[in-house]
């Protein structure tokens, strides 16, 4: 039944529709006819849905085109995962490096030391890293969270206590914490006791003086070197809180024009005390 002496070259010629010879056998001739039928030009029924399909495709193209701008700014989910993994890896490597060098803050160094010790890696502990950072978690000596909440109400306004306390070590924190636990005062008095101790007598929180001190002869407000304007404002607030005057906004003195010689034409300097209402 070998009616098809079809070699690879003949097969390629049939498929590429180049040279056709039908004298190679019945089966091969039938194959050539079959391929010819398959290549037949488009029949009418194959285009029957053209208007609907073309309109739908054109809409799809336009929709994709209008959405391409926003899509280009969107991060590919795979890329996003890679980015997050890279960032996490970088953070882990940096943290591990700092842990090996013993440069992490004390509490973090302790955690890193504990975790790495479980996998057999020895890194310096918190005590090997002297510095200003607290060595234990929480950073307030033996105090607990409930303890710090009691003492926290007495901090001075402006938050300057934390900055000064950090340089004094844990001793003062422990002292304040102990005072907060042991004092017999309660409520407002307790806050006053704690804040007074914590601020070294500077704070009057919870204990405003009933008899304000007489005004000093010089109403010059205290000024800080770095932020004189802030110092003036706080001074005004302090005075108003003590009931001596109502807070007010101060108009900035007019800037005097300088003469060509550099002298002011006005009678007084804009920074003179008289420019501020006392």
């Amino acid at each position, binding site marked *: *039944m070998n009616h098809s002496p079809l070699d690879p070259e003949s097969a390629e010629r049939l498929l590429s529709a180049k*040279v056709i010879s039908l004298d190679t*056998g019945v089966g091969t001739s039938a*194959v050539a006819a079959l391929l010819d039928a398959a290549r037949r030009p488009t029949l009418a029924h194959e*285009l029957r849905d053209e208007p609907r399909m073309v309109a739908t*495709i054109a809409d799809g193209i*336009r929709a994709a*085109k209008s959405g391409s701008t926003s899509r280009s700014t969107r991060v590919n989910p795979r890329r996003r995962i890679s980015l997050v993994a890279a960032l996490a890896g970088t953070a882990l490597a940096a943290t591990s490096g700092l842990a090996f060098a013993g440069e992490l803050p004390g509490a973090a160094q302790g955690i890193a030391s504990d975790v790495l010790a479980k996998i057999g890696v020895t890194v310096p502990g918190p005590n090997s890293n002297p510095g200003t950072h607290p060595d234990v978690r929480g950073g307030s000596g033996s105090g607990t969270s409930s303890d710090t909440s009691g003492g926290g109400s007495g901090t001075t306004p402006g938050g300057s206590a934390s900055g000064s306390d950090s340089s004094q070590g844990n001793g003062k924190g422990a002292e304040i914490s102990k005072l907060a636990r042991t004092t017999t005062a309660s409520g407002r008095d307790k806050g006053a006791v704690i804040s007074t101790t914590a601020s070294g007598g500077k704070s009057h929180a919870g204990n405003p003086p009933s008899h304000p001190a007489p005004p000093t002869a010089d109403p010059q407000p205290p000024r800080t070197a770095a932020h004189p304007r802030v110092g003036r404002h706080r001074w005004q607030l302090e005075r108003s809180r003590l009931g001596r005057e109502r807070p007010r906004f101060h108009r900035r003195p007019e800037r005097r024009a300088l003469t060509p010689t550099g002298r002011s034409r006005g009678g007084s300097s804009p920074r003179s005390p008289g420019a501020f209402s006392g």
Partner: protein
Amino acid sequence: MGDSPFSGVLGAAQLGEEWAVATLWRELHPRLVRYLRTAVGDDAEDVASDVWMEAAAGLGRFSGDAEALRAWVFTIARRRLIDLRRKNGRRQTFATADDVLTAHADRAASADPEADARLALDEALARIGSLPRDQAEVIALRVLCDLDVETVARIVGKRAGAVRVIQHRALKRLAETMAAEHVTPAPHHTILETDDESLSA
């Protein structure tokens, strides 16, 4: 449609111009449906719609000539077929050998040329679809999609030599099957067209 006119048509189609989309659709859709019919039979139109929508979404980023566009569209179609086969298992819906023989027998009784051509096309697609899957795919891409061996090899992920072996086996198988059935070519099939450059002309 040479490369320069093709570029103009493609550029307009990428902007959503309906006349340009219609030009591409008339060139590609009949081939696409014929290719899909060898694999999924009567579901070919539905799959072709999905292929076109996917092509519409990516047409704005396409660049290349007519043959590259054809290869791209049929790559999409092949991926759709793979997805469909995964979803439906190995179920095949194309015509069986009995359908082919029945259509072939009925063709002689038909007097309408359009109907005659349609039956001949159906028979050809059914016979190609009855081949083993890899052979049917290669023959369909070579004949129906008018792609060369290298392009077909890229689409199916095989070497060009392997594609030539597959197409040779496929034609031998068809020839043996049709010889066994004593299928003879119709008189108008004595000479095949020498060039089919409908897309690139």
